[in-house]
């Protein structure tokens, strides 16, 4: 026991219905927590070549040194597994209250191993585990499944669930936890393959820290910074606090960088009816927060349902305003809200689902794809909602789309692959690589596919660096990838790092755990984790060809404000070469032995 960490991880063997407490060994403790624990454990225990939906895959849920403490914006839980969507190692995050509850159980993580024989509900009370039958909720939505757990076993359980999409192995199925989701990478399908429909977690303990006085002082300082940012209308944090993450949409639109109609245009005429301010100003809105967060970027809204009654829905996030809004030419706020709600009830990632639908609509427009009984058109509510239903039930064309954008395009052929806006089968986030070249490189090189969480979005969108330039972007992207991996060992909210001086993180670790670590050591740890992920992916069979943007990026973005931005293939490849070289990797993207030795992970070489 070191301060805020219990140094215990609960291992649950789903096949044998047994569990045990694992004392976290020193070589794992060196990874601090969060993504570090997850990537280290999966790298050590799971063969990268396995089928992600086989019982050999594992799900590692982790928390970090600051989870469940007074430090704001550390509510998230990290989930690491092998992704059925990308075939890579996945790290996915959800906020809310699950992470702190795991900590209150006296645990630093939970590892799910093997697979259950029947659909099951797992109930975790402190360190004890119960298996219950999930028979009554097979086929239920995420909301219904979680309500069932609370009503049947106790309202104070914090819950995690999958919906029908996860049960049916939809490649982009998410895992949902109350108001939040592990969206990226298809973790819901992995949980489904293990026949776990829902998990309840209830902890009765507390979280102590190594130096309570220092924690109190650091928390107060951090809260002061966050209060300042919260009240600043020019800070992104202030915008998110006031309008949710959709508050930033007008800024992106202004730069001609809002992906529209499957990334054909960089601006959308209907944007002002689907952005954060619109929802906030036109609908009854409750602002909701994750554990201990003063920014409360979450939203729930009340609509009038078709039958005239109240219909509650979680507010779409900015990424969903793109994926199920502008990118589908859907400027109807009710359709967007309904589409967002459907993805949550079925339990799929709204991002990759929307990106796959956008590709299907483009192919339908080109006459290359059709669906019996459906008239597929951009901007058509029936097409948007109909395809979500089809994907999540795997009916008709939905069975193809449920495999993700790249796999669907490979199945259709007809040159459609270049129109699927994805990397490694994971859909683009709401940012345009052609407008923002560094973000393009971040999409291409991300170990989990088309990821915006480790991209120079802030620097490019506010103009701190020239968004259109390739110069210096390789180094910038590496710095951000390693930095974000470092703070994800603490599972800091991505927005926390926007306004927090990096030197504060080692102080927080020391106050919470008593462990001395410098910021530069943390960044090196971030790099070590990045390399471990890369090695896992190489062993899983990925190559340089997977670090590639789709061909559509070689065509100019249409629309006046987007300045005909385009990816120049030669310049992009040169930037990728530079990235590999700066990483200490060979021209195929494999880490050089010297780099692995320097990072102390020579044993993991391919």
């Amino acid at each position, binding site marked *: 026991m070191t301060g805020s960490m219990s140094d215990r991880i609960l291992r649950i063997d789903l096949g044998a219905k047994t569990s045990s407490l694992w004392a976290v060994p020193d070589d794992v403790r060196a990874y601090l927590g969060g993504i570090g624990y997850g990537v280290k454990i999966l790298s050590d225990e799971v063969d990268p070549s396995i089928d992600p939906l086989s019982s050999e895959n594992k799900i590692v849920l982790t928390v970090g040194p600051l989870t469940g403490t007074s430090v704001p914006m550390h509510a998230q839980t990290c989930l690491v597994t092998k992704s059925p969507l990308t075939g890579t190692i996945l790290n996915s995050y959800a906020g809310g209250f699950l992470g702190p509850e795991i900590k209150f159980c006296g645990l630093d993580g939970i590892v799910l191993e093997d697979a259950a024989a029947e659909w099951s509900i797992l109930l975790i009370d402190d360190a004890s585990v119960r298996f219950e039958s999930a028979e009554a909720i097979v086929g239920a939505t995420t909301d219904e499944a979680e309500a069932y757990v609370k009503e049947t076993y106790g309202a104070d359980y914090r819950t995690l669930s999958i919906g029908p999409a996860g049960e049916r192995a939809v490649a982009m199925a998410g895992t949902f936890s*109350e108001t939040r989701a592990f969206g990226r990478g298809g973790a819901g399908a992995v949980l489904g393959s293990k026949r776990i429909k829902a998990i309840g977690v209830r902890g009765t303990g507390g979280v102590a820290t190594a130096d309570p006085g220092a924690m109190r002082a650091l928390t107060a300082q951090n809260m002061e910074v966050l209060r300042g940012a919260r009240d600043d209308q020019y800070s992104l944090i202030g915008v998110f606090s006031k309008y949710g993450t959709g508050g930033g949409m007008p800024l992106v639109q202004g730069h001609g960088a809002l992906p529209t109609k499957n990334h054909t245009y960089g601006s959308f005429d209907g944007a002002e009816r689907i952005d954060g301010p619109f929802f906030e100003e036109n609908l009854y809105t409750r602002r909701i*927060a994750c554990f*201990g967060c003063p920014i409360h970027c979450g939203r729930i809204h009340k609509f009038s349902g078709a039958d005239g009654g109240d219909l509650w829905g979680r507010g779409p996030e900015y990424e969903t305003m793109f994926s199920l809004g502008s990118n589908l030419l859907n400027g109807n706020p009710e359709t967007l809200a309904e589409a967002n709600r459907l993805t949550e009830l079925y339990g799929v990632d709204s991002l990759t689902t929307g990106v796959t639908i956008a590709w299907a609509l483009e192919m339908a427009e080109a006459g290359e794809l059709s669906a019996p009984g459906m008239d597929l058109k951009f901007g058509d509510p029936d097409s948007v909602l109909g395809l979500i239903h089809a994907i999540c039930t795997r009916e008709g064309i939905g069975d193809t789309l449920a495999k993700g954008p790249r796999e669907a395009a490979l199945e259709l052929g007809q040159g459609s692959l270049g129109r699927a806006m994805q990397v490694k089968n994971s859909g683009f986030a709401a940012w345009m690589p052609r407008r923002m070249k560094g973000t393009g490189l971040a999409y291409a090189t991300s170990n989990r596919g088309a990821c915006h969480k480790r991209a120079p979005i802030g620097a490019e969108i506010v103009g701190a660096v020239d968004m259109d330039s390739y110069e210096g972007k390789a180094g910038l992207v590496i710095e951000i990838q390693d930095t974000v991996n470092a703070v994800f060992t603490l599972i800091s909210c991505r927005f926390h790092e926007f306004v927090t001086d990096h030197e504060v993180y080692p102080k927080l670790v020391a106050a919470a755990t008593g462990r001395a670590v410098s910021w530069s050591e943390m960044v090196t740890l971030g790099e070590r984790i990045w390399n471990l992920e890369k090695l896992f992916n190489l062993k899983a069979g990925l190559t340089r060809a997977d670090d590639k943007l789709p061909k559509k990026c070689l065509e100019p973005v249409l629309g006046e404000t987007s300045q005909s931005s385009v990816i120049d293939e030669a310049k992009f490849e040169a930037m990728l070469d530079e990235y590999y070289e700066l990483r200490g990797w060979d021209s195929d993207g494999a880490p050089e032995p010297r780099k692995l030795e320097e990072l102390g992970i020579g044993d993991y070489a391919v």
Partner: protein
Amino acid sequence: MGFVIDVGKCTECKRCVIACSLAKTGVVRMRSSRIEIRPNWPEVPEIRLCRHEDCEGQPCIEACPVGAISNVDGVVLIDGEACIGCGACETVCPYHAIRIEDGKAFKCDLCGGDPACVHECVTGAIEYREVAE
């Protein structure tokens, strides 16, 4: 002085709960907090907290069979030594603000007049101030 609660402003972040448990027990433990945010999803939550002087009749004092609860200058306090953990006070509290653990009742003691929870609330859902009559 009294608590002024506007539940419509509550984001359910629980910073108040975290602050209370730290102030009273030195660790973050939700079950030890004297203030509780009970979700009523998707509607606004219920904030469970003793109202002290603003509580009409203060029935917990009457209900206590051993006289362990008293009103000291407007602050309703439980004498932990005297408490027998019978739960009578918990039953009658109109604000559901009293909890029992390990055979002892506990509730808000106003932190000596400067409640820790209030400092952490960024939206103003809980304030402690003079209320205009």
